């Protein structure tokens, strides 16, 4: 009998060695970074070259299509005198604060919609509907309710981002394979334990996707609010800077502002959400596109 057992153990060890998925050899770090950086940089160069060519051809007047160098000069001037950082700080700290508040509101809301049937059928459709409403549409209402105050900014931001974070969490929970909560039950998890140890971690990829989208909505909504409800009392954010460009008919300022708004949006996505998402997907064996 023991011999047979040893034999089984040997076969089992062999199967384990053969059947376990192999890890793919990772490319070198340098190579990965180059692959991530070079194509977008090349694309940018092409875009600027075309821009330069169009400007040189003078199809449009200068106040509509400025020279790339004019935009660069404006941008550099704002960076050199430090104003750019002031604009970015004003906007980003508002956006981050608003985003955090949105998380605090949206998470329990999403949980309730996902788990309580009545709440789902009552407010689920409105929550999805709100997502397709452009948040700019809230600006006039918010101005009438709260005046031109920071409250207006936060109200617009929350109306934009809360639905998408909550919907992300709902989608994440809906996609949890039903076997996992059942396993939790047979392993002896109570209701709260099941939420904490099984449901939330299982829903994390969807939740994170919702957070990412929620951030994008926060940022967009805030910019819309800042552009429309600009006032010296509110401090000057990127939206107000952009609106300055419009009132002065200064196209280099307008384009500089757009570039800064894009940079912040892309920067936060790349520095915060991309690594988080990668981490979460990789531990689950869902490598995604990253």
């Amino acid at each position, binding site marked *: 009998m023991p011999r047979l*057992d040893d034999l*089984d*153990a040997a*076969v*089992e*060890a062999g*199967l*384990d060695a*053969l*059947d*376990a*998925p192999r*890890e793919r050899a990772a490319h070198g770090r340098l190579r990965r970074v180059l692959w991530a950086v070079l194509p977008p940089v090349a694309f940018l160069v092409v875009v600027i070259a075309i821009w330069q060519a169009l400007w040189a051809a003078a199809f449009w007047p200068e106040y509509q299509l400025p020279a790339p160098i004019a935009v660069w000069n404006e941008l550099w001037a704002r960076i050199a005198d430090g104003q750019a950082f002031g604009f970015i700080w004003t906007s980003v700290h508002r956006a981050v604060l608003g985003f955090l508040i949105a998380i605090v509101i949206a998470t329990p809301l999403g949980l309730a919609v996902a788990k309580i049937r009545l709440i789902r059928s009552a407010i689920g459709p409105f929550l999805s509907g709100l997502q397709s409403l452009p948040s700019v549409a809230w600006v006039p209402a918010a101005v009438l309710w709260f005046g031109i105050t920071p409250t207006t900014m936060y109200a617009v931001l929350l109306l934009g981002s809360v639905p998408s974070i909550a919907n992300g969490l709902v989608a994440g929970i809906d996609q949890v*394979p039903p*076997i*996992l909560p*059942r*396993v*939790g*039950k*047979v*392993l*002896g*998890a109570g209701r709260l*334990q099941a939420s904490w*140890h*099984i449901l939330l*971690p*299982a829903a*994390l990829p969807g939740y994170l996707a919702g957070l990412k989208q929620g951030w994008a909505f926060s940022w967009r909504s805030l910019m819309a609010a800042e552009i429309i409800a600009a006032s010296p009392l509110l401090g000057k954010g990127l939206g107000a800077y952009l609106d300055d460009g419009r009132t002065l008919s200064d196209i280099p300022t307008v384009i500089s502002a757009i570039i800064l708004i894009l940079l912040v949006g892309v920067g936060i996505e790349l520095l915060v959400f991309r690594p988080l998402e990668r981490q*979460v997907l990789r*531990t*689950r*064996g869902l490598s995604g596109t990253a």
Partner: protein
Amino acid sequence: MTATLDESTVRPATDSAVRLSGVHKTFGQGERGVTALAGVDLDVAPGEFVCLLGASGCGKTTLLNLVAGLEKPTAGEIERNSSRPAVMFQEAALMPWLTAAANVELPLRLAGISRSERKNRTIELLDLVRLSGVGGKRPHELSGGMRQRVALARALASALHTSDGSLPSLLLMDEPFSALDAITRDVLQAELVRVWRSTGAAAVFVTHDVREAVRLGQRVVLLSSRPGRVVQEWQVADLSPADEAETVTVINQRLREVISSHAAA
């Protein structure tokens, strides 16, 4: 085989680990309700290995879920005289965000067992299923057979270590090897029998594979389909290879009859 263990010394003194009397289970209500089980009586002795055999739709999974407490019977009684059962499903259903070791540890964590204690028991259990080296790997880095062994270790953790040891333990398995390739299944069957012997637990093993049922079980219970009822039982403990082949043929024949009877309807 003559040199078998004297079973009376292995079995605890209680008279049955699981007893089902007149269990009915209907899903839905009224005319559109589907009867999955219609009057099932079944007695599993402590330490006994029972295989539930049947074609699709015979309610064998339902029966197991009832015993596991995942569902309630529509009528009849289920008496379970055991600690929390160790349940295994067709899929390993490991938590993909936890390592193999953390998966095994999960039921211990849910039961509020101290950290150092948990670590020790996890190591023991991984050792028992011969996976000591891979505790740090994630489920997606393991083969199907390895995942099922982690699931076995996790199920054992919940059964053996989370409630008081005075009650006999119980393994409930719902076709745990049916998604595996033939040789892996073969090895895991041997593994399961080894674990079952070493824990002295009663086992209820659901399968649609006659050979597997005869190989693993001490008793094979054949269920009819739609609704599920006990059709016939065979004692299959310690058969000689010739008798085993003979029994497989007999049970196969009976199973075919049961399935054919549905063609007429």
